[in-house]
Structures are given as C-alpha cells and as structure tokens.
C-alpha cells in the first residue's frame, strides 16, 4: 500500500465512512450522555466540597466512657451482648485517631462487631502533648493495659476477656498478655500488628541504628510532632495522594463515595504526636533491637516471653501492607505456645484491612466468626 497522507486519514475518520465501523451508534450516544451527566455531577460535587466543606460526622456508634487515666480513655459500646466474653480493642498509640474503626454507619468495624453481639470496649490512648513526654512503653504495658483489662472485667462482669490488638496495639498487648499471666485473657487477636521487626519493611530499614540516631532525635525534639509523623507515613507511599485524588475525581459524581472520602480524608490528615520517651523505646527496643521477638523485652520488671501466651490466637495479615508486612505479622503464631492458632492473609493494605468495603467483605466476618466460636 502506498504511503497515505495523514490529512486523508483524518478526513475519512471525521466523515465516518471508513469501513463503516466508526458510525456514531445510538449506544455510544447514550454512553456519552451518561458520561456528560457524570461530569456535571463531578463539577457540582467539587464546587460543593470547595465552597461548603462540611465536617463529616464520624464515630456514631453509641458508647459510654467507663474509665479514664490521664489522656487514655476506655469506652464501652452499646450492643446486644449476646457473647459472654467481653472484647478489648487496643489500637495504635499516637500516629492517628481511633475513629477510623467507627468511621461511618454501615462502614464501621465497631458497629459491625456490636451488631454481632460482642461487648466491645475500645482503648483510646489519647492525643499527647509535651507533658506526656515521659510516658514510655513500660507504662503502657505494665500500668495502663492491666488497668484497662481489669476495668473491662469489672464493668462487664465477665471472668475473662478477649483482646484484639491492631497495628502497634498488637505488639503492646501481646507484651502485656505475655508478661501478665494473672490477667485472664481468653483469646488474642493480632490484626496487622508487627511482631518480628526484622521483617518490618521500609520502616525497619529507615530506623536501623546505622542510619537513625533515635536518642539524638528525641533529645532534640522532645515530642515527635504530628507533622513529622505525617511526613514519615507519606514518604513510605509517596504516590498515595496522587492516586487518592485521581480516584476522587473519577468517583466525584457518586455522593456516597464523596461522603466516605470526606470521612476518610479527615482521619488521614489528623495525625497525632508521639510522646518522646515512648518513641525512643519503641524504635530502640522494637525496631532496632527486635527485643519482643527475641524474648529480651522487660516491662515493669517482668520479662516478656511470647512463649508464655497459651490462649487461642488469631493472626490477620494484609497482603499489600507496607507498614506491617504479612511476614512480620504472622511471626506471632510461631512464637506462642498456643495449640489453637490460626493465620489468615487477606487482600488489602494496612488500613483497608480493617476499614472500608473490602474489610466488611473479607475481614470483619472472619474475625467475628473466629471470636464468636470462642466467646461463649
């Protein structure tokens, strides 16, 4: 075939008579109309977001404060309480606020668990200031957690309790369970909680003692400011904001998506500072020396041996978790003495494991079913 002129092809393309397959069909016209409507909605919702930003109403599941100590609070959620064993949920300390677990009605882990009949208690560590700089891992594990557990038993009237640790809350509560055998823990769940810090991915590398001087860091700054915590988490996935905003634009026509986005965005931009001493111990003992995994950790004068844990264990890892990679989460199963132990690896990342549509589909029912079978 002789070389065609570019203009010829364009002309035929616009005339639409080339092979007859470029005709603007009714179906295509209908699709374009739908696309146009979507774009109108996108512009309308964007205008609304910019001109009338509303603060999403998060954490709507009814609850009451049953105990407080300094900044920490223990909340009990309203539920049918069909399961005898109460559940204490221990989330991360610092970094972010715990309302992610009760984000919106219909998309809330706490709401789901209470509907399943669990007597649900949430430990909110609080928002720390310079006055909390002396708070360390030791105080959390050997003073705050035992009191919270005791209060759960008192308030619920139960003789034992289940503990669910998420993210940093998992190693902290695992250390508590291992070092306080007198506390009647019936079941322990680790959700995306790092245990073997040698396999903790990018954070383990960046916080390696060859590259990161934690003493100098804490001595200079005192409290680890929220902005610095935010910078660290943004750096671990630098393209996150780009893809979030692209997805927002793509789904901006959908009011339900926008509502969820607003709530999640509020949470994702509300970082919490770390108390200086806690950060020092957390980095040195857990990330740099991996003491929890090596049975070298001592809290309140008690050695922490994960091998002392003998209650049923459920470990949940997320396939795309870059904060607590699955291999560092699943290590708990190999270190405990329990005969009843199970590990599942679910799709999603560190947050989407427990919050969002995927979590409601894959994670929550599994956790609830495992726990329900062991809570009567």
């Amino acid at each position: 075939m002789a070389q065609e002129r570019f203009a010829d092809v364009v002309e035929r393309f616009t005339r639409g008579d080339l092979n007859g397959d470029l005709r603007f069909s009714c179906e295509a016209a209908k699709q374009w109309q739908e696309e146009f409507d979507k774009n109108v909605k996108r512009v309308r919702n964007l205008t609304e977001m910019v001109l009338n930003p509303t603060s999403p109403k998060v954490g709507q599941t009814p609850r009451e404060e049953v105990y407080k100590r300094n900044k920490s609070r223990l909340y009990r959620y309203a539920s049918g309480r069909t399961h005898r064993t109460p559940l204490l949920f221990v989330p991360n300390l610092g970094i972010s606020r715990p309302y992610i677990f009760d984000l919106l009605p219909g998309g809330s882990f706490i709401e789901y668990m209470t509907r399943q009949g669990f007597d649900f208690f949430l430990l909110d560590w609080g928002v720390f200031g310079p006055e909390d700089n002396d708070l360390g891992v030791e105080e959390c594990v050997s003073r705050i957690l035992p009191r919270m557990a005791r209060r759960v038993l008192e308030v619920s009237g139960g003789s034992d309790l289940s503990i669910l640790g998420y993210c940093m809350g998992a190693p902290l509560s695992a250390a508590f369970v291992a070092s306080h055998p007198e506390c009647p823990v019936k079941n322990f769940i680790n959700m995306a909680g790092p245990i073997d810090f040698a396999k903790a991915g990018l954070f383990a590398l960046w916080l390696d003692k060859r590259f990161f001087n934690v003493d100098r860091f804490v001595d200079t700054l005192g409290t680890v400011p929220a902005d610095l915590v935010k910078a660290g988490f943004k750096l671990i996935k630098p393209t996150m904001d780009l893809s979030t905003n692209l997805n927002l634009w793509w789904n901006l026509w959908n009011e339900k998506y926008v509502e969820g986005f607003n709530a999640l965005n509020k949470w994702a931009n509300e970082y919490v500072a770390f108390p200086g001493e806690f950060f020092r111990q957390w980095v040195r003992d857990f990330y740099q020396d991996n003491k929890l995994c090596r049975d070298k950790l001592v809290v309140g004068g008690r050695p922490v041996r994960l091998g002392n844990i003998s209650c049923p264990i459920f470990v949940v890892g997320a396939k795309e978790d870059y904060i607590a990679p699955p291999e560092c989460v699943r290590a708990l199963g190999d270190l405990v003495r329990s005969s009843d132990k199970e590990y599942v690896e679910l799709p999603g990342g560190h947050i989407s494991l427990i919050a969002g549509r995927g979590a409601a589909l894959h994670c929550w029912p599994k956790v609830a079913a495992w726990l329900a079978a062991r809570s009567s």
Partner: protein
Amino acid sequence: MSETSPSQQLFEMWKRQLEEGAKSWAQLMTKGAAPAAPPPPDPAGFWWKPMFEQGLAQWARIFAQTPVTPELMTQWKQFLDQSIEAWSKALSQAMSTEAFAQTMGKTLDQWLTSQGPGKRMAEQSVETALQAFNLPSRTQVTAVAKQIAELEDRLDRLDDGLAALARRLEEASRQGTPGSPAR
C-alpha cells in the same frame, strides 16, 4: 488494505509523523556539528521512556476501538492507575536501598543540627518574655500537668490496692477464715 481499524490507522499515522518529525528536528539540530561524537546517553530515558512507550501503547489500544465510547475514559484512567503504580514500585525500590536510608539519616541529622540550637533559643526567649509579663511558661504548665498525671496515677494505685484488699476480704469471708491483712 490491512485489517486494522481506521482509528488504529490514524494512530499509526500519528505515531509515524511524530517519529519522523522528531528525527527531522534532531537532524536539523545536529547539522554542522562534529559527526564523530556519538550522542550522550540520556540517563532520564530510563524513567521517561517506559512511561512514554506505555502511554503510546495505551493510546493505540484506545484508538483501536470503534466506535469511540466513554470506555476511552475508563481506559485512560486505567493507564494513569498503572503509571502511578509503576512509579510507586520504582520509588519503593529506590527507597528500600541502604543508600537511600543513609542519605535520609544524614539529612535528618543535618536538620536536627540546625533545628536544635534554634529551638532552644526560641524556647528561652519565649520563657523570658513570659516571665517578664509574670505569666506561666510552657515548662511550668507542663510541670503542673505532669504533677496532676502523677497524682491521678497515685489515686489509681490506691484504688487498685483497696480493690485487692476488698477481694481478699471477700475471699476470706467466703472461706470462713479471718482475712490476713494485705501487704
């Protein structure tokens, strides 16, 4: 005539024009220059070339469909998602090297070196100014907050002790023996 669709042909034509145009421009720019020296390798090519080629391939797929429908937008979104994912992977690889961790550690150290004295000076100035106005400084307010927290902690311990004592007494009375005093 080949079996390719007209939009595919249009795309191929556009691509050819682009390539030939780029070649002509390159020839024009290098005209008169010494022919012996080969063009220097483009280090940035490592980054943009795969993206550019991926983009071209995606456009080729988009134009290959007839008639043109909003599916085109979906495919474009998919392309952007894939590109972001590719960038994310590349950046992750770069950031998971010891060289990156070392550079980051050094940068942080330098930042702390510059921050430390400035922070101390600013804190001292603020304290002096507050003292001059007979107002409590941040350090003093923090100290009061710490004392309150300690007081709360002591109360809690007292509470724990009393609860333990009450439990022992209860157990002792259940067993019908006199309770031994709590230590």
